């Protein structure tokens, strides 16, 4: 850890923020832990983490470098490591690419059907191997 001395930012030094043009999203507030619905409104999963096209760690960022952007919403095993520390190997990350995201409100909507997403493989496995097999499994409750 670098110098323990803490330099307190005086409130007077804080200037009004520049206002970006488009929709402004804070990750913790608007993206993380939000429910993801597919195009028909079927819940897909909850956003456990975000993947950025961000800078490589521990490398100085050149002046005027393009800012990173969100490449994918992450879900699945990454929730465990987010809470208890550590990091899952990158091949085990389940991704929902950012370009299928169609809207961000109190929920995040994607423009595709949930069955087409890798994030719903557990649901599909259970449906085909367990729940679908039990009689009455694919009937509307009457």
């Amino acid at each position, binding site marked *: 850890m670098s110098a323990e001395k803490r330099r307190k930012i005086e409130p007077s030094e804080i200037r009004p923020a520049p206002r970006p043009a488009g929709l402004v999203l804070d990750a913790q507030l608007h993206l993380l832990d939000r429910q993801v619905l597919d195009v028909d409104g079927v819940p897909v999963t909850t956003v456990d983490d975000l993947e950025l096209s961000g800078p490589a760690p521990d490398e100085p960022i050149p002046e005027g470098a393009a800012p990173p952007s969100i490449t994918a919403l992450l879900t699945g095993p990454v929730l465990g490591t*987010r*809470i*208890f*520390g*550590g990091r899952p190997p990158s091949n085990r990350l389940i991704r929902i690419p950012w370009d299928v995201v169609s809207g961000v409100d109190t929920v995040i909507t994607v423009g595709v059907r949930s069955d087409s997403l890798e994030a719903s493989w557990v649901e599909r496995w259970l449906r085909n191997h367990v729940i679908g097999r039990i009689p009455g499994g694919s009937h509307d409750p009457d």
Partner: protein
Amino acid sequence: MSQYGRRLATILLALAVLAGALTACSQRPSPEALKGPAKDVFSAVQAATLAVDLRIKNSTTAAAGSTAADDMLGEVESATDEVEGFTAPTEEEKSLRDDMLTSFATISRAMLHARDALTAPSGGPEQGQPGSGAHGLPEVLGELRNATDQLKALMTKAGIQ
């Protein structure tokens, strides 16, 4: 991030120790320690007496009555096990514990008769008909009342109000 994991583990450990403290260890048969089992058995025999009384008035079904008697028998047995677990070094405590155990035994015998009498289908309103001769409902009721009075006397003697 992982210090949360460690903190979580310490909390769980503390809870486990807490749970350990909850289990009662074996005590000496002081009136204070006997108060719990004695009151439990008193409550159980009163409930069984009420069940038999209601059955005589045909206010309850055979199933409900016998279930009540069965439950109460279970209560008396667990109280008896608890009192048997007491260590009684002095002579005076030993006699108190043994009196208590004999009283519990008479109560559980009375309850056994009550359960048998209660399970017999009610043959109609006349008295004493269901169940074998000496174990008709009114006789069982009397037996239960005597056992209760015996326990009550013992409790007042031992200073358990």
